[in-house]
């Protein structure tokens, strides 16, 4: 039996718990432990992606057979998400070494590693309740990481996030209870086979609760208010992870339930796909409009995340294989670009000691490498050709229009124009010649290497989009035919 799926979850947890031990070697050498663990985790997730490309792995935790025990499923889609999460986390860990001051740093890494384990578990699990447990592991660490600075802003943002997030979790648990009480199973693949026969009422209620619950976690529009506060008040590497990975993993989990637990035909017959595509369009528009009038740079980036997630939700709710490819590609592109943006803004804000756009004017001259990372990330998210965002936005737009959603395609173009407006405004401001009296130094290696690496990934993906697309096409194929693959592995229930 291949133990790779469970190692992916155990490894960060092991690092976190060995770090929280109060023995002197762990206290003193926490950077070594975290560094080694991050490198191992990165290698493991890449190995997981390569393994899944050859053959999907179906892991029974504790050796229990399928409908009874918890299963972890490593197919190309979950392997891709785990690898993508690991890229961002590795960059964030490297960045944190230079960014986080000494004081409480050990606890910061404990939380960070648990968050990594939670997000990896969310994409790997094949069990509904296990998914909730991982969502909560990730959410609780995210709440406390948002509050990590303990300033008035971060505490306020954290309590907002926590109140809404906990209500979201309660809705998800209630939906799971309804599903279990009407079907009698918790395994996602098993549920898919048995959910067709159940009456319409519990089906409708549970879908509504899942959309509302995951909508809170992923900031879909009526439930989006916490995201801008939380992502702008968190430490920079945490903002990068929450915006780049957490929200995407939440969307992935929601659509895993929609595609692979309910089945897309059930959703179409209930009209949920129309609901989701309109929620996505509203999220994209409102996020874009709100981003345009922000004075705080990190807040602007956070609203931009809301609007890009709206685009992803829009294209994923088409229910087609090509739509999935476009959606996953945009998840990847937006994740690395937003990671570069948040990390570079973190560097600039650390030097200038402010997040306000006016306070940062002219800093591009002093910090050329951070400014380079910011520029590449901004242009990628706007969708300038030759950068990765262009390819995925093109795919999303063409998919929307081919499937008869011309209006939603126009929404994407409007959102991109608004995005160009607010990103170019900031780019111009940061490069303005009005040089301030005090000169800022460029940040240390630990801080600009992750930024430049992520920006470089944006450029490489933009110039050679076929390399990630080969993997992403396989990932969406596995996601689309999840149930037949699992039935093939375990030979039916």
């Amino acid at each position, binding site marked *: 039996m291949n133990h790779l799926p469970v190692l992916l979850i155990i490894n960060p947890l092991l690092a976190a718990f060995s770090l929280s031990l109060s023995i002197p070697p762990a206290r003193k050498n926490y950077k070594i432990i975290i560094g080694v663990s991050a490198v191992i985790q990165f290698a493991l997730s890449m190995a997981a992606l390569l393994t899944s490309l050859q053959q999907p792995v179906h892991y029974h935790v504790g050796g229990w057979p399928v409908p009874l025990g918890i299963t972890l499923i490593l197919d190309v889609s979950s392997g891709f998400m785990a690898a993508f999460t690991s890229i961002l986390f590795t960059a964030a860990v490297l960045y944190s070494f230079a960014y986080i001051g000494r004081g409480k740093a050990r606890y910061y890494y404990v939380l960070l590693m648990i968050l990594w384990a939670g997000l990896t578990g969310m994409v790997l699990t094949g069990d509904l309740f296990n998914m909730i447990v991982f969502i909560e592991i990730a959410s*609780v660490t995210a709440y406390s990481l948002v509050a990590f600075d303990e300033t008035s802003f971060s505490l306020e943002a954290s*309590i907002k996030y926590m109140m809404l997030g906990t209500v979201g979790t*309660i809705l998800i*648990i209630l939906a*799971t209870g309804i599903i279990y*009480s009407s079907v009698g199973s918790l395994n996602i693949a098993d549920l898919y086979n048995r959910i067709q026969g159940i009456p319409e009422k519990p089906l409708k209620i549970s879908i509504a609760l899942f959309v509302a619950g995951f909508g809170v976690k992923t900031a879909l529009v009526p439930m989006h208010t916490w995201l801008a506060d939380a992502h702008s008040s968190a430490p920079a590497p945490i903002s990068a992870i929450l915006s780049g990975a957490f929200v995407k993993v939440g969307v992935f989990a929601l659509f895993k339930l929609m595609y692979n637990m309910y089945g897309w035909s059930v959703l179409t017959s209930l009209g949920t796909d129309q609901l989701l595509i309109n929620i996505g369009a509203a999220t994209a528009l409102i996020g874009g409009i709100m981003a345009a009038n922000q004075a705080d740079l990190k807040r602007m980036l956070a609203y931009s995340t809301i609007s890009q997630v709206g685009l992803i939700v829009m294209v994923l709710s088409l229910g087609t294989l090509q739509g999935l490819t476009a959606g996953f590609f945009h998840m990847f592109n937006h994740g690395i670009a937003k990671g570069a943006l948040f990390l570079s803004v973190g560097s600039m804000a650390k030097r200038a000691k402010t997040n306000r756009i006016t306070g940062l004017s002219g800093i591009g001259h002093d910090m050329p490498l951070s400014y380079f990372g910011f520029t590449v990330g901004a242009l990628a998210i706007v969708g300038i050709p030759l950068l990765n965002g262009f390819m995925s936005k093109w795919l999303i737009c063409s998919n929307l229009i081919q499937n008869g959603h011309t209006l939603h395609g126009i929404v994407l173009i409007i959102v991109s124009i608004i995005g160009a407006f607010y990103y170019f405004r900031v780019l111009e401001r940061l490069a303005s010649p009005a040089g301030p009296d005090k000169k800022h130094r460029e940040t240390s290696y630990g801080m600009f290497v992750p930024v430049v690496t992520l920006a470089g990934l944006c450029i490489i993906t933009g110039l050679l989009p076929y390399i990630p697309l080969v993997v992403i096409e396989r990932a969406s194929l596995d996601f689309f035919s999840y149930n037949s693959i699992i039935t093939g592995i375990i030979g039916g229930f």
Partner: protein
Amino acid sequence: MKPTLIFVLLIMSLGLYCVLVKDNLIKKALGINIMEGAVFLFLISYGYRQGGSPPILTGSETNIVDPVPQALTLTAIVIGAATTALMLGIIIKIYKIYGTLDTNEIRRLRG
């Protein structure tokens, strides 16, 4: 509709009312706990069988209580306890900085 379901909905809406309407952060935290209680009640009441025996199988039982909702409830209680502890911890920090628990006054984040 089963009477327990009506009861669950009542408690749930009571908790939601608390979270949405009350201004005091502690009361909001209590409301979230009330909502959680409703969900636990829903899970447990589903698994309950009239006159059923505990799910310890010796081979002769015919009418046993469903053990899965109980396991889910235990896990959910643990999650709820952890969240509540963290929430109260952050509320204490907020009180130290802002000097109030009123959500109308804790409004420095705008936009």
